């Protein structure tokens, strides 16, 4: 089930009405059933790996609590189980395909085996969430959850199941035990958040996706057209993914839960490290806590630390998809962070004006998104080899036209960014008296809904991060 569908709206209204009429004990069970309905709506068999992952990790965590001296064994079983699930569904064909290429290089007979397995949506998200829980139990950071219903709900909670945020057990599990109260203020903010999410998805992301998809379908784009496409994808991926997060957070808030923030205006980041503090925060903090720090983090030799940093980003890239371009994208960011450390050590970073730092980081992010979007490595090399000097006047005109089109559709994002990201002190909404603020928020809500009705994209697509 996808968020931006009538099916979801009806489903959610039914869930909401039923949920609030139940007692706490039944609320969790009902939410769990609703989450399974949500996830198995189109492909019920997707539930099988989800159930397998849930039961194994829940049992392993309990095993750790019951037999503390065998903690490491349970940890290994659980983590290997989760990784095996990912490897089978997500990476097996990538591995087999590359093995075949290697065999051909050595003049051996390729195996030519391909598993005919559909990738269950959100598998990367819920396996990481499960791994995080098991490691936390292993580290004694959270107690093992005895209730299978609560643990299953932690893994399966439908607002964040398919594309995150990748929640932490310490944040979510207590919420499943607490009483929830109806708060009209919270509801209003949740509805506003959901409206903004729907707007970002169907008006901004989907309209800009048409431009990006068209340009990335060209076999030999010119320099300005290609980079207009990169700009389009840069806005699209942010609008799309942050829209999902907003709808997820809004839905969860209406049910009485608070999900973590996943984005903090990433395109005003002043450095690569700052970008990753603002982009997909739940993944970057997960990578930091469960991969980078266990590898030794920064408390080791500079060489080892560099390896840890670049390795973590390479794996983070691979997490996004079984394709070399994602690995390259991860390596690119890892190397940028290394370069930033050197740059900072020389003290150059401090001397640059804020705007230049933001612009520079934005350009670096755009270059990264080109690697992310372009799956064909040959084409990627050709893209980087394009010269602005080779572009004709017509190419520039077309590139500028597409650039403007992207800017027009991004205008609401820019306004939002300006008031809440760049100059939060200018955010007059916060300074308004309560009644005026209510009128302002209602007007914005009406404008967003009107925008959805009149500017919704002609074609609609799944959220980009569903494929991961």
């Amino acid at each position, binding site marked *: 089930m996808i968020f931006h569908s009538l099916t979801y709206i*009806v489903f959610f209204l039914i869930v909401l009405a039923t949920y609030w009429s139940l007692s706490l004990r039944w609320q969790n069970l009902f939410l769990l059933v609703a989450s399974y309905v949500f996830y198995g709506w189109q492909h019920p068999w997707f539930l099988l790996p989800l159930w397998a992952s849930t039961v194994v990790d829940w049992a392993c965590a309990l095993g750790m609590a019951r037999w503390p001296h065998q903690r490491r064994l349970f940890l290994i079983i659980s983590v290997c189980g989760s990784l095996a699930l990912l490897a089978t569904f997500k990476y097996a064909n990538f591995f087999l395909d590359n093995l075949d290429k290697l065999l051909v290089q050595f003049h051996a007979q390729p195996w030519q085996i391909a598993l005919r397995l559909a990738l269950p949506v959100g598998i990367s998200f819920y396996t990481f969430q499960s791994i995080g829980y098991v490691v936390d139990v292993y580290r004694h950071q959270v107690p093992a959850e005895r209730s299978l219903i609560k643990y299953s709900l932690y893994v399966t909670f439908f607002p964040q199941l398919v594309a995150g945020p990748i929640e932490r057990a310490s944040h979510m599990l207590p919420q499943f035990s607490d009483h929830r109260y109806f708060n009209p203020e919270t509801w209003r903010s949740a509805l506003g958040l959901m409206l903004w999410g729907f707007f970002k998805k169907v008006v901004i992301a989907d309209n800009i996706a048409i431009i990006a998809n068209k340009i990335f379908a*060209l076999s030999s784009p010119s320099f300005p057209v290609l980079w207009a496409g990169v700009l389009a994808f840069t806005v699209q991926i942010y609008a799309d993914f942050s829209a999902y997060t907003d709808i997820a957070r809004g839905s969860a808030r209406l049910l009485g839960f608070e999900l973590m923030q996943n984005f903090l205006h990433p395109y005003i980041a002043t450095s690569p490290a700052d970008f990753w503090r603002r982009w997909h925060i739940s993944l970057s903090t997960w990578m930091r806590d469960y991969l980078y720090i266990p590898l030794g983090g920064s408390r080791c030799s500079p060489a080892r630390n560099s390896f840890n940093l670049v390795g973590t980003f390479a794996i983070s890239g691979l997490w996004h998809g079984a394709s070399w371009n994602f690995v390259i994208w991860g390596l690119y960011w890892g190397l940028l962070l290394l370069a930033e450390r050197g740059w900072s050590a020389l003290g150059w970073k401090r001397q640059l004006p804020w705007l230049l730092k933001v612009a520079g980081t934005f350009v670096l992010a755009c270059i990264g998104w080109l690697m992310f979007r372009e799956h064909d490595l040959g*084409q990627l090399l050709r893209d980087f080899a394009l010269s602005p000097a080779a572009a004709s006047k*017509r190419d520039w005109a*077309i590139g500028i*036209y597409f650039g403007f089109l992207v800017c*027009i559709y991004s205008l609401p994002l820019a306004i939002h960014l300006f008031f809440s990201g760049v100059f939060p002190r200018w955010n007059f909404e916060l300074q308004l008296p309560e009644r005026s603020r209510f009128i302002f928020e209602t007007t914005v*809500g009406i404008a967003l809904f009107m925008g959805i*009705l009149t500017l919704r994209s002609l*074609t609609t697509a799944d959220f980009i991060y569903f494929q991961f």
Partner: protein
Amino acid sequence: MKSRQVAQLLVFVLAVLLVPLGLNYWLPKKRPFNRKPLERLQAEQPSIILIGDSLVHAAIDPALLEKELGMGRIAMIWRGGAASAAWYLTLKNQVVASGVKPRWVCIFFTYDLLTNASFRTTATYRAFLESLMHGEDPVCQMVLGDAAQRQTPLQRIASRLYPLNDRRHHYQEKISRFAFRTESLVGPKIKGLPRRVNEIFDVARLRQETLPQTPEAVAARSLVFSADPKKNFLPHIVEVAKAGGIPLCFVRVRPNPGADNEFEEGAELWAYVAQLRNWIETQGCVFIDTTGEKRFRPEMYLRPDDDHIGPWAKEEATKIYAEVLRPILEGRAQPARLEP
């Protein structure tokens, strides 16, 4: 305090849901009718009008065909991805409405596109169809109405309350025009920029894996010929042409024959084409089948698994079409019948 907050919540929800409901009916409903092709036809007064999709655009140079045929001016009205709904509306609202009296209107098609009513009628194609309509077209409503019938009652209510599709093309076109205007103010001045933008997305410039779903793939399903006017546009195309006194010629385009230059089609498609042909001929129209025309060789096509003629072979393809069409359009010969 809490009751006030509840009241605010209710006002918020009702305002967000109801205000757009009212404003909905003040806004323009659909993409405006595109008069340009009609005016062009009136200015050019062509003798032959070619209607089709990107296949005909890729294969025929109208100026060269005009010279080769020597039967007067030729106009081509094409649109990538167009199919029977678009051809019906083009014939009715552009060709017949223009008042021109061409000697022939030739509609080029592949596979079962003449009777596949719903093929490419949604999303961006819907916007294009709207640009060919004045208001709602009753035939389109009748033939494509099936799609609306498939909606759940809830979807129908939502569509009725908030007719999302009615507005979108209009505003998106405005945004696009605004971007063109802004570009012309600050960027390089290029004449006919919208056309140039479309040109860069010509099928010849697209990556193989991103090509839109081909009619061949879409046709890979059970093929049953039907001339039911409630189910497809073909009877309406013929009727509109008859009413306008325009002779119709349907040209079945040869898809890429494959490396051995032998275009093969299954028994089902053969049976379908035979029925289609019989029906068209009983209506007094001409049916030309070029699928057996071996002069359209595999190397003339854009790619091994693509049905578009490559730019390098356009001239040759135009000449072949001229040779095939001339005797039939001049009334000197009957179209050849292909045997399975």
